[in-house]
């Protein structure tokens, strides 16, 4: 498991998730475009572009 944020797909247990408010790094912002429309400063999360798969998220 790498410490480097290389954007590869990973599978993470609930126990290991610690949600943060921080603005994502530029690299993560660029990769996020695959699934998300934009980062919302107000809501402190990415706005989903995969509503066809996760309609309620």
């Amino acid at each position, binding site marked *: 498991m790498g410490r480097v944020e290389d954007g*590869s*797909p*990973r599978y993470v247990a609930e126990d*290991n998730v610690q949600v943060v408010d921080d603005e994502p790094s530029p690299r993560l912002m*660029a990769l996020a475009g*695959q699934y*998300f429309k934009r980062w919302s400063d107000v809501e402190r999360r990415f*706005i989903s572009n*995969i509503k066809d*798969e996760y309609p309620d998220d």
Partner: protein
Amino acid sequence: MRDKFNGDVNKVDWKGIFAERHNLGRQVSDGISDILSEQKGRLAKAENIVSKGYDVKDALLQNLSVEDSAEDVLARRYYSDVVLGLLHRNMALQEWVKLSKGEDVPLERALVGFDLFVLHSRTGDCDEISNALDNIAELFRQEVPGHVEMNTRDKARALAGYLRMHDLVGIKCNIDENYHNLQNNFMGIALQGADHPSLPLISVAIYCCVAQRLDLDAQPCGFPFHVLAIVKPREGLDVVGQRLPERQFGDPIYMDPFRSASETLVDSLKLQLETLGIAPSDQSSYLGCSGIPEIVRRSAKNIITSVQTLSRNEGVSRLSTTDPTPEMDGAFYSSLWALTILAEGDRNTTETLRAQFLPYIVQRIESHFPMDVLLIEKFITPLLSNLPQHQEIFNAIRAMRDSDARAPREVKARTTETSGSVPFKVGQHFKHKRYGYFAVITGWDVECLAGEAWISRMGVDRLSRGKHQSFYHVR
């Protein structure tokens, strides 16, 4: 459309061009919006944009640099980059396929193919590289006014001297450490300006491409271990301009712009060949022009060597698209394609070689370049037959097509049940409690759905609730 810029100003229908361009721009933006609107059917939508021709590039670049405040900024930039990559690779493969069929492809168009795989929005596609080479030739004409009268040898040396002085060829600092740097393999990157090092092959390519613009017949010679330029005098003359009997060709000279501005004497080359155990009677093939396909294959192998060297030196992660250094993935991928399309030998040999490379190409398409199913269909399927190993490729293509047609595989709505047991949501930014990295949630499962092998390798059972807790797909 770009050709029209070279035509007579008065003859060109500028109003018509701007209307055409505006219309195309809108079609491209709409096409991107279409891709963004749902996961299904993206292949056809991307193909639709690319099929409008290379002129869509400007519109793609505009979408790629949409303002930060746009409602779909990240998605639009991402997929514009994806389609731009597809457009670039399509161009590269077109040229390599032409080469593979024995058609004439200029050296610069053949080599820029590698650049196109890693270019993204940087400057350095076919037209831009040709312009850069034109500019260098023009500057040479201005700075070296006596060049017109020069004989072949003097001109060859003057050009090498000029290119070296302006750092357009060779590696200036720390040759040993930097020799296998990935960027040294890319003509476009080498031409970006001073201090951009290049391997002998690329240095020679730049030399030859500029030389040809100056009426100097210079071509790459694939000498063992170190590519050289072979410069031939005009028919009926020798390299110092003396007349020869009509129809006779004088002996060529050899230049090594990577190392020096001076000529490399053929005797020293013959000596090197002898040391390598190559008998004088066999030497002529090593001393002649290499075909352009051979140069492309050689560059592909150089790239693979550079990538392998980089991988061995640890700590190299995937580089961002704004990083001027070419990404390892894209570079390696370009070489796989080049070696597949330009596989050399008789029919059996080429079939075997291709069968070796294709699974690696498919693997990368599945993981990094999903749109490239389109490129396999266009450029590879014509080369395939009924062999069993080819059947696997057909199957992989069909699977990817199906996946695109049916996407998403499953719709995961939140029931009252899942709402409770899946506390985190798609789009949340988080830190991994154990490994410390930051990532974003892109999906979830109510329980761990990985196979037993993964579960035991990752030590899932050591977690307090083991595999019976929600698991998240993340990037």
